[in-house]
């Protein structure tokens, strides 16, 4: 279930996006996410989704990379849209003799546009960038914060461990979910079963975090390789696109 989401999985390729370094892509992604967060208007949502679609085709990615989220997520989204409709608000749509206030529904759709848009650009980054290249890129991006005495090395070390443990975590949660589904039906209420599952997943996550912490303690401080690849034309194109997209978000 969770394993089928294929979070941050790289797919080999020779496109501009593959040739560009992690720095430029992380920078462009940061610009897009900041732009969208400060101005989550329909035009910004449109620009982000256009970026995702454009990136998808430029990187020549197959449809098979698209995640297949669990059915539960679709149900949850449908429920959220239902609540949005119930919330009412302007404008109204007229269906025959009936007028329905759809302001809440539109707001909910825009909310999905923003959150899924951010997820989409992150997936695009994952499909075209090797996982190991992300921590040095983050280190480069956060470097200016050292001037205000923010411990960026520690932040990057934490990020590195989090990124490395993500596939392991996903694997353990998928295993727990599969084993849970294989248990015989009991008279317990489903809520109790769900709490048991959540508790076990938490134990698994805590154990993984503890193991990583112990590994760090045993090997000493984590040193991130901050040697960066030289900038290439593809990097310039990616950054220029990011700047253009954010400018468009500001202007439109």
């Amino acid at each position: 279930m969770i394993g089928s989401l294929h979070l941050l999985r790289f797919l080999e390729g020779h496109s501009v996006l593959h040739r560009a370094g992690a720095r430029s892509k992380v920078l462009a992604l940061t610009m897009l996410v900041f732009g969208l967060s400060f101005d989550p208007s329909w035009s910004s949502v449109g620009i982000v989704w256009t970026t995702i679609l454009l990136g998808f085709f430029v990187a020549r990615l197959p449809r098979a990379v698209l995640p297949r989220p669990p059915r539960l997520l679709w149900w949850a989204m449908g429920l959220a849209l239902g609540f949005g409709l119930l919330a009412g608000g302007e404008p109204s749509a007229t269906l025959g003799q009936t007028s329905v206030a759809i302001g809440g529904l539109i707001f909910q759709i825009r909310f999905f546009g923003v959150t899924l848009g951010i997820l989409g650009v992150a997936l695009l980054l994952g499909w075209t960038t090797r996982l190991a290249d992300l921590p040095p890129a983050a280190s480069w991006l956060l470097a200016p914060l050292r001037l205000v005495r923010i411990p960026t090395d520690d932040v990057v070390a934490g990020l590195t461990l989090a990124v490395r443990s993500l596939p392991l975590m996903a694997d353990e949660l998928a295993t727990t979910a599969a084993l849970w589904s294989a248990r015989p039906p009991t008279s317990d209420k489903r809520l109790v079963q769900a709490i048991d599952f959540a508790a076990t997943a938490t134990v698994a996550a805590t154990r993984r975090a503890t193991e990583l912490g112990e590994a760090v303690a045993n090997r000493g401080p984590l040193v991130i390789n901050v040697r960066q690849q030289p900038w290439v034309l593809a990097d310039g194109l990616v950054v220029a696109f990011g700047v253009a997209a954010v400018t468009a978000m500001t202007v439109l």
Partner: protein
Amino acid sequence: MSGLLELQNVSLTHGHRTAWPQPALHDISLRVPAGERLLVTGSNGSGKSTLAWLLAGMIEPTSGTATYDGQPLSDARHDIGLLVQHTRLQLLRPTVAEEVGSYTERVGDRLSALRAMGFSSIDGGRRIDDLSVGQQRRVGLAAQLARRVGVLVLDEPLAGLDPSGRASLSAALSSLPATTTVIIVTHDVEDSRPLGSRLVVLEGGRLKADEEVL
């Protein structure tokens, strides 16, 4: 009920409909009669754990047929128990008694399963998180025994245990009912050899050898 577990020309590719297909098993054919003690071994990445999950009906083959008693393995999961290497992941209840009790409502079955795995009635109140890895595995086994499954699939049951933990778990495994088919997936065949009557060797996802254990 014959209790025959059978794989016919089974191949399995992880993520076969994604952009990251990973072939794990190739053209495996295997017949495991009821009550057999089968050891499955092979090096890292040979497909042992995938085969364990397949035999337990947790995943379906990409091609070929996998059956138990003539029905697809995925439909026979109620009669097949799986014990994974990281057993803690499958122990969902807080105490030993609650965990084993969540598999059966018959009190007699719970108590006899716990006794068979070396636990006394006092141990029932112990918290799962206070147990050693070996003890957690014995709780997992007790839970499967309480279910009265026909087939037990154990993925690396002795891995990571100290000598006393190995000895106590080996003793527990030796005492499993003779009618239960036991499939032990292990990379350390020497320690598991006394527990098996037949040995299957995997290499690169293919069946390399299938022999009797002497």
